[in-house]
Every structure is written in C-alpha cells, then in structure tokens.
C-alpha cells in the first residue's frame, strides 16, 4: 500500500514533542515538513544532496538531550548511502532516519530511482548495523511510527512507502543563515562563539 505523502507527514508529526528536532533532505521532504507548519526546530536542506543523514548525526551526537529526526527522500539518501554505514557505526540512541520512498526522483521529472529497480533501503539500514529498521506501509503503522518518534531509545530507521505524486509545494525560507540561527535559538544552543 502506498501512502499519500502529505497525509503521512501530518500523521508522523501529529504528536511532535518539544524535544524533537527535524532535518529535512533536499527536495520534496522539505516541502512536506513545511506543509505541517513552519517551525524553528526544522532545519531544511535546500542543497547538499546526500548530506541530510550526516547533518542529523552531528546534531544527534552534539545534543543527546534532544531527539533528531532526519526526514528525507529515497534519492537524497541514495546519494549518500555510505552515510548509513557511518550512522551504523555510531548508532546514537536519539537519531531517527525516516525515508519517504516513492521510487522516483520527483524534482527532476519522476525518473525511476534505485529503490524502484532493486535497492531495499530497510535491508540496507539493517545491514549497516541499525537493528531497528522498519518498513511502514499502512496508516496504522504510520501512526505507531509517529508515536515512536517521541519515545524511541535507540537508532531508528524507517522507510515510509509513499505514492509517486507531486503535491503543491510549500516553500519555507531558503536563507541558510536564517535557518541556522533560528534553529540554534530554538534548541537553546549557545552564543555563536561556543
């Protein structure tokens, strides 16, 4: 069963707690997370394709008091697939990587991605040492994953199987300095010289 991406993101973040920081990947997942409502605790990547998981890792290691959820797409993750290996070595208990997998590169004309052809991202995450690797394929599982986001206590990977459509874009600010500064303020990171 393929889920609607906007319904899926709304369900995932319906119970977002105050300690949940979000890093999005370049492309549709940035619009998805913004569609739920802009939030200073969202760090949207407008570039740096392949880097979302590692931004999340650096943040999760720096702030064990927060939970960090990386919400990205299959194409973005595939560009930095080695990053799953790096996350698998570190395995911070407060890091979740959630992949909206529609099997296509939506931004560029819906060309098929590797997951459409052969690559199983859940098995890949598991093989990289992330034991809690979930395949989310229906609304009840999605709801459970949303609840898990406020109480998981080990590295979590989830693939959410979504339909390959392209809903209206919701565009947050593209000013990277503003995104950085407001994020740091929102999570209580100290002055710029720390």
């Amino acid at each position, binding site marked *: 069963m393929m889920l609607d991406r906007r319904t899926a993101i709304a369900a995932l973040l319906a119970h977002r707690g105050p300690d949940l920081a979000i890093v999005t990947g370049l492309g549709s997942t940035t619009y998805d997370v913004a569609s739920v409502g802009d939030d200073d605790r969202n760090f949207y990547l407008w570039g740096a394709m392949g880097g979302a998981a590692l931004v999340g890792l650096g943040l999760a290691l720096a702030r064990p008091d927060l939970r960090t959820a990386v919400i990205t797409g299959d194409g973005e993750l595939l560009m930095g697939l080695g990053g799953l290996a790096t996350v698998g070595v570190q395995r911070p208990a407060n890091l979740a990587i959630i992949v909206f997998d529609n099997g296509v590169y939506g931004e560029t004309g819906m060309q098929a991605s590797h997951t459409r052809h052969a690559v199983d991202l859940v*098995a890949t995450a598991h093989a990289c040492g992330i034991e809690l690797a979930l395949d989310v394929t229906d609304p009840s599982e999605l709801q459970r994953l949303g609840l898990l986001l406020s109480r998981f206590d080990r590295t979590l990977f989830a693939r959410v199987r979504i339909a390959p459509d392209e809903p209206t874009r919701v565009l947050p600010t593209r000013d990277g300095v503003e995104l950085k500064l407001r994020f740091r303020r929102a999570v209580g990171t100290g002055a710029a010289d720390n």
Partner: protein
Amino acid sequence: MARAGPPGAAMREPTWDKEAEVAATPLPRSETGWPDQLFGVLKAKDIRQVGYVPDAGHSRLIELCAGDSTIRDVVLTTEEEGIALAAGAWLGGQRAVLLMQSSGIGNCINMLSLIKSCRFPLVTLVTMRGEWAEFNPWQVPMGSIVEPALRLCDVLVYRADHADAVAGTAEAAIDLAFAGELAVAVLLSQKLIGRKVWVE
C-alpha cells in the same frame, strides 16, 4: 511493522572494539611530534567531534582521538560526510574538526555549498599528497589543485610546511573559524609525512 531480517543476521554482532583496535595498531608513539601537538590543540579548543576518513598521515592523531573520552571520533566512508557532520554538530553547539587527505577535498566540493550557504564554521586538517617526493602519480591531479579548489569554494587556506608550525597554524584556524563562522583548511605539507617507502 515488518522488521528486516536479512540472511545471516545472527552470524555477526555489529560492535566495534575501539580499544582493541587502537592497541593493535603498530604506530610510532612519539609524544612530542606534531600529531600529538595537534591533539593538544583540539583538546584545548574544546573540539568534541572529529570526523575522518582513515589516512596514514593522520593515523597518530586518529588514534589519540579514538582513545579520548570527550572526543567522539566518527569514521566516515567519504569526506563530504564530514562536512555535513560538522554542520550538524554546530547546530547542536559542538565544535567539530574534519581530518582528511588532499584527495578528499575533491569529494567535498558540492557539500561545501552547505557551509557557504548557511555560514557554518568549518575546520579541516588536510594531509597533502601529490606535491613532494610523491611515488604515485595518480595523487598529483587532485593534490596539485587543492588550494585553488578550496579558494573557489570560499574556504580560507592556511599551510604548515614545518613541524614546529603545525600546532600554531591549527590553533589560529580554529579560532578564526569558530569565532567568525568561517571555513578554514589547514594544509599539512607532504614533507611532514615523509617519503613513502614502497616495496615492489
């Protein structure tokens, strides 16, 4: 929710015995060399995450970081992961440093747009290849363009050609990067690493 159960999962336990690995690594243990001085700088400047792609020139420093309880050493599969790691660390208020060999700069070019677009601080300590007594000509194409490539990406370039300049140069780079949210690379001359002995 279905959980992955790949074949052979029960056959291996994915743990990493860092201490055993460090103890088993046969390296010269000079406590006064530039790698040890660099480690002292990282400690003094409150560096809490060190990302690296394994590199012979940085082996001693990597060993020291791996053995330190306040530094998280993060082994990377490719250098651009370390750029993103450093950005995430700064979002959370920690200072990171990235260790790599000069060939890794080529892997970082697009990811450096993250640093420039958001004005993240970045410090990378780069051991040079392809510039002095290089045995392997395949190291030369990237090694010879490291400085102009970094400058094109708006990364400031510092250089240390002598062992007694390494610590001070790194310290200056760290101060500048984190105080001003700037990107600085410290190039460590191949002369510091020495001539590589190859056995045919």
